[in-house]
């Protein structure tokens, strides 16, 4: 039993460390240690149940060990704040007053499409609509709307034209524009190359949201080609 206790504890700590390193996209609405417990407990219950050569007491010992570790972490969670940050992680602010925080996205192994997907789930369809957005330590997404954002009369879905320095060809054809059209916009905005652009979205009214790497975001309007509509 002592061996099982130690082995279960080692596996638990290893899994917890891996889950923390994997970032928020792997967790999804649970604290990292709760997620690890969910992963382990089903297996621990199943193996001695299905394999009759293993004493049932082995499974029970592992489950009691998991319970002990859970209670211990809960206790430390309440009593020791630095420990809470180490085990549970901290919220990551991915959109702030400067725009998207690329380093925070990378730190949590997220990309632009993950962020846009989370925003859509939270009811925001344009990057411009959000003043602050963050991923909680549980992986849940929360966004604070921009108070000064004007209500558009014409409703149109913003589409991603440049994602992490690359044109999205599918969206270019959807918007019936082309690379030369956006190259000209980039030149007008004094952006040397599309590779410097982290994100560029455009909606049907010609409103562009653009952010270059290491720069504040820009939001401006352009005249879309006449045939362009979606």
């Amino acid at each position: 039993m002592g061996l099982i206790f130690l082995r279960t504890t080692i596996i638990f700590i290893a899994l917890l460390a891996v889950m923390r390193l994997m970032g928020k996209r792997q967790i999804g609405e649970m604290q990292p240690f709760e997620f690890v417990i969910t992963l382990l407990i089903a297996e621990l219950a199943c193996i001695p149940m299905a394999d009759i050569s293993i004493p049932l007491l082995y499974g029970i010992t592992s489950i009691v060990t998991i319970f002990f570790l859970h209670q211990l972490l809960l206790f430390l969670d309440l009593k020791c704040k630095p420990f809470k940050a180490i085990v549970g992680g901290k919220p990551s602010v991915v959109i702030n007053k400067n725009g998207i925080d690329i380093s925070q996205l990378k730190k949590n192994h997220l990309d632009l499409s993950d962020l846009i997907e989370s925003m859509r789930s939270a009811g925001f369809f344009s990057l411009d609509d959000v003043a602050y957005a963050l991923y909680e330590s549980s992986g849940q997404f929360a966004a604070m709307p921009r108070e000064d954002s004007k209500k558009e009369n014409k409703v149109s879905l913003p589409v991603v034209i440049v994602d992490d320095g690359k044109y999205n060809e599918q969206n270019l054809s959807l918007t019936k524009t082309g690379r030369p059209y956006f190259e000209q916009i980039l030149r007008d905005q004094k952006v040397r190359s599309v590779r410097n652009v982290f994100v560029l979205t455009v909606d049907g009214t010609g409103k562009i949201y653009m952010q270059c790497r290491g720069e504040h975001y820009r939001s401006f309007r352009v005249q879309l080609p006449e045939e362009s509509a979606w």
Partner: protein
Amino acid sequence: MVKTFLSIFISLALLLAAALFEHFYISNTFETFDIALNALEDKVREEIASREDAEAVRTLWEADKRNLHAVIPHNDISQIDYWLGETVSCIETRTYPDALSRLEVLQSICRQIPMTYKITFENIF
């Protein structure tokens, strides 16, 4: 808070008690069984061992086996059952050299099993 603290204490106490019980129970059981096997080995060497002597060792083993099923894998128990059965049949047919080799296997299993439950580096990893 008190409830959490109490549950930590109780679960840790249960785990420690189970670990200590397992350690002493397995060590004692296999020590007793090993002593019985040594006595049987002496008789086999002197070629005076009878089926009754072998059956006495088997009875001792059968008495402990039931409880051992709760703490050690059933495959380990089956292995001892198998080699003990072989030993009994060799003693009954008075093929003492064969009985000696089977007793050697049994003795080494009896020494190995408690070792696999010790908290050592090789057992943990």
